[in-house]
């Protein structure tokens, strides 16, 4: 059974053997959840308005993402997937920078070192060995860094998931692997992804402790992930956490979820919403939180409505530290083309 500390109705679960996080911590989580939800929905809307190419929303999964970021210390690292924009933002990255990839301006919009957030990883599970490498390098230097590596349920089927967990265990690397089990990999339900009793069981074959947690219960996530991070920091090695949640929207805006799941299935999860639940428990007036959320939404709208003129030189500038002679030639060719086409336009119009 996944760890749950606050049930779907906002009541504390008795006799869990775990303390509830203190109220300040929970309030901080709620504030971020509300902003995260607003950000998810704003981004979704911006796709419809053509300002974002595509958006894989984490609506409904915000608790996992917000808490994954909140349990980390400054010197820690976060390795997100493409669906983890709100985790990235929670870690301090400007949301406009966080959406750069999906806007199409560049691949990664932020400086990974500034907040210690790796670029979004699109090829599934490939970020997991990177996370292990970052953790191992820190450990070799005696730094207290912990790495939070995110992955989807579908991603667990990739070979890189296996190799990363095995390396982490053998190297005793301080990595917390958080699987957001949202029951789907695009159209493929979990039952077709694995026959394992749970995704947390996947730790066994590596000698890594696995834990299941209710992914829509921020309190439980704070407890379980917080513990995993401290254990890793103390030298206890990697840990695997499966957070059970649900992808409330289609895979991305380009997807048509009605082809593979019933609306009723989705509706059943509305009652387990992570925000409503925490809000009910805390009995807070959400108004104050909503203001911050609106400010972020506005910032995102402004940022994404601003068109950035692509600078052709960028195409060649970052392939290598020093441009190869070949790239210098190609850049010159492009410049020449563009100059000529400007001349043509000038001449013609």
């Amino acid at each position, binding site marked *: 059974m996944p760890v749950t500390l606050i049930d779907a109705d906002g009541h504390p679960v008795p006799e869990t053997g775990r303390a509830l996080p203190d109220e300040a911590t929970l309030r901080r989580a709620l504030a971020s959840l509300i902003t995260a939800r607003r950000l998810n929905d704003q981004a979704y809307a911006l796709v419809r308005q053509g300002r974002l190419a595509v958006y894989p929303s984490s609506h409904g999964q915000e608790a996992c993402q917000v808490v994954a970021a909140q349990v980390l210390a400054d010197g820690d690292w976060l390795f997100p997937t493409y669906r983890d924009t709100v985790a990235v933002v929670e870690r301090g990255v400007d949301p406009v920078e966080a959406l750069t990839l999906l806007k*199409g301006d560049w691949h990664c919009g932020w400086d990974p070192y500034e907040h210690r957030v790796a670029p979004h990883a699109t090829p599934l599970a490939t970020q997991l060995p990177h996370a292990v490498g970052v953790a191992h390098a820190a450990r070799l230097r005696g730094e207290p860094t912990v790495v939070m590596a995110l992955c989807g349920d579908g991603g667990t*089927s*990739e070979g890189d998931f296996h190799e990363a967990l095995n390396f982490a265990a053998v190297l005793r690397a301080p990595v917390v692997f958080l699987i957001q089990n949202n029951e789907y990999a695009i159209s493929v339900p979990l039952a077709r992804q694995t026959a394992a009793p749970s995704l947390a069981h996947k730790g066994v074959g590596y000698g890594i402790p696995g834990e299941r947690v209710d992914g829509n219960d921020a309190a439980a996530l704070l407890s379980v992930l917080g513990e995993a991070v401290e254990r890793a920091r103390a030298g206890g090695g990697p840990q695997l956490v499966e957070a059970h949640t649900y992808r409330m929207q289609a895979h991305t805006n380009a997807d048509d979820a009605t082809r593979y799941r019933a609306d009723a299935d989705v509706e059943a999860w509305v009652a387990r919403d992570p925000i409503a639940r925490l809000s009910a428990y805390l009995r807070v007036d959400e108004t104050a939180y909503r203001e911050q959320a609106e400010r972020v939404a506005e910032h995102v709208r402004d940022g994404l409505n601003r068109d950035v003129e692509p600078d052709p030189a960028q*195409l*060649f500038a970052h392939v290598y530290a020093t441009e190869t002679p070949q790239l210098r030639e190609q850049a010159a060719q492009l410049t020449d083309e563009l100059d000529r086409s400007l001349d043509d336009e000038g001449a013609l119009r």
Partner: protein
Amino acid sequence: MTHEKLSMAQALNRALRDAMTDDPSVVVFGEDVGPLGGVFRVTDGLTAQFGEDRCFDTPLAESGIVGVAVGMAMNGLRPVVEMQFDAFAYPAFEQIVSHVAKMRNRTRGRVALPMVIRIPYAGGIGGVEHHCDSSEAYYAHTPGLHVVTPSTPTDAYALLRESIASPDPVVFLEPKKLYWSKEEVELGTRPPAIGRAVVRREGTDATLIAYGPSVPIALEAAEVADREGRSLQVVDLRSIVPFDDETVCAAVRSTGRAVVVAEAAGFASVSSEIVARVTERCFHSLAAPIRRVTGFDIPYPPPKYEHLHLPGVDRVLDAVDDLQWEDS
């Protein structure tokens, strides 16, 4: 023989459907190819029509998909697997290079692998990183694979039928940006087989050699050139491996000048090969060196930059202009 107006995606879907109808050993699998019908809907309706044993979703693991297909092909079936996007076939690279390409040779022809690896490839659809790679060179360089890529719905249908019927593995590259291009398709026909190029447009001054997503660019360039008084011939390779030296060289000899057009980075690519082999064979018919118009040697750029990267009509015409038309 029937005619229908179909998009390339629909033509591919028809090819799968017809192949599955004709041959019970054809099975289709991959990520999201079942109830969803694939992210490009190429496998739409196959599970409903043929059942889950014939078209099924797999776990998310490309090496596993190709590896399992190898085993199924060894054991009497004809798997057609889908890699969701070009860059997501890379996890299967070892299986493709070390097994798919080599099994027949390894076993002196005893174990054949009649299987098709479908890969939506190349750019021009505003896709984000890893969704727009032109990966043909990796496969074309690997002996033992057939590598084909259609540029029209008609060819998509015909080439996929041929590929599924082939006794050997075929890497079937589908130009994403042409999925929605439509034309009247002759179903049930057998146009030139795998290994044959076609002249898509006659012309006398220079030859454009293209394949897959670059064919429409080449045709458009020829159209524009025509208005400017230059007659360009357009050859569509269709099949990269085997390569149709005969058609390509005859075309180049007939004009004495050539430009290769391809989206992939140019370095050590299929375009390099075309230049090299045509030059080797037609050196004394050439009035000028063969030019290449390719993507730059850079990672595929973000959507807002792709128009700068992709070979376009102007760049093709610039290259044609460069073919030393004046005495010097």
